[in-house]
C-alpha cells in the first residue's frame, strides 16, 4: 500500500511548526538541489554552500510559500538562482584565460555537424542503471563550457521552458535556443561515441555547399 505523505501535506505540517515534517520534506528533495548545484558549478564545496544556503532560505521563507507551484518547483527555482549567483560572481573574477578571452562571443556560432552516427547498443532504461553511465554523463556535461551547460541543465534536466531558462540566465530566447542546440549536439556526439554500436556506424551525408 502506498502510504507516503504528499509533499503538499508535509508543507502544511511544516508551516504549522512541525520540524519532523520539514526534515522529511527536505530529505526528499535535497539530492536534487545538491546535484543541480554540483552540475552547474562543477565544484563540490560550492555545491554544498549553495545547497545549504537554499535550504536555510526555505526555512525562512516557507511561511511565504503560497503553494501556487509545487514545492519542488519552488525549491528548484531558489536553488537555480543561488547556483547562478555563484557562477556570476565567479565570472566577475579576473580568471579568464587568453583562450577564453579571444573566443568569439557571438552566439551566431555555427552548429557542429554530427560525426559519429550510430544506433546505441542499449536503451536509456538499461543504461541509466549503471554506475559508469553516471560517470560518463557527468564527464560529458563537464566538457560543455559555462555558456552551454546551465542552459542544458535548466531546460532539459530541470524541465524549464525556453522562456523560463532565458529569464533565469538573463539571455534572449534566441540565445537559449542556439546554446541548447549546441549543447545537445555536443552531448549526443560524446555519448554516441561511448554507447553507439560501432558496427552500425553511418557516414554523414556529404554536404553540398
Amino acid at each position, binding site marked *: 500500500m502506498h502510504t507516503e505523505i504528499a509533499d503538499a501535506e508535509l508543507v502544511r505540517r511544516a508551516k504549522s511548526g512541525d520540524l519532523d515534517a520539514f526534515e522529511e520534506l527536505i530529505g526528499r528533495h535535497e539530492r536534487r538541489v545538491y546535484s543541480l548545484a554540483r552540475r552547474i558549478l562543477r565544484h563540490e564545496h560550492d555545491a*554544498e554552500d549553495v*545547497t545549504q544556503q537554499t535550504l536555510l532560505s526555505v526555512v525562512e521563507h516557507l511561511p511565504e510559500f503560497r503553494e501556487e507551484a509545487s514545492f519542488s518547483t519552488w525549491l528548484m527555482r531558489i536553488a537555480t538562482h543561488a547556483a547562478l549567483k555563484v557562477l556570476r560572481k565567479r565570472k566577475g573574477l579576473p580568471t579568464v584565460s587568453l583562450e577564453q578571452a579571444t573566443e568569439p562571443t557571438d552566439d551566431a556560432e555555427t552548429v557542429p555537424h554530427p560525426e559519429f552516427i550510430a544506433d546505441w547498443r542499449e536503451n536509456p532504461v538499461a543504461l541509466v542503471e549503471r554506475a559508469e553511465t553516471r560517470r560518463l554523463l557527468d564527464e560529458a556535461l563537464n566538457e560543455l563550457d559555462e555558456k552551454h551547460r546551465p542552459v542544458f541543465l535548466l531546460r532539459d534536466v530541470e524541465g524549464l521552458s525556453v522562456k523560463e531558462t532565458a529569464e533565469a540566465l538573463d539571455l534572449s530566447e534566441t540565445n537559449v535556443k542556439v546554446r541548447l542546440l549546441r549543447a545537445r549536439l555536443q552531448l549526443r556526439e560524446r555519448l554516441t561515441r561511448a554507447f553507439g554500436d560501432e558496427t552500425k556506424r553511418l557516414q554523414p551525408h556529404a554536404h553540398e555547399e
Partner: protein
Amino acid sequence: MKCDQLLAMLNDYVDGDIDPAICEEFEKHLSGCNPCQVVVDNIRKTITLYKDSQPVALPLEFHERLHRALRRRWKETHKA
C-alpha cells in the same frame, strides 16, 4: 530540405514545437535519410538519459552538518 537545414530545426522538432508545414518537410527528409533519423534518435536518448539519471547523494558529513544547521535555523525562526 537538406541535412544542414534539418539540423537547424532539430530542437523545434524534438521539443514538438515545430510549424506543421515545416514538420512535414522535416519528416519527408527523415524518411529518406538514415543518418538524420539516427541523429534525432540519439538526441532523444541523450535527453532522456540525463533527465532520468538519479541525483547524487550528499556526502555523509555534509548531510549531518546541513541538518544541524537547518534545525538551528528552524529553532531561531520558530521562537514563540
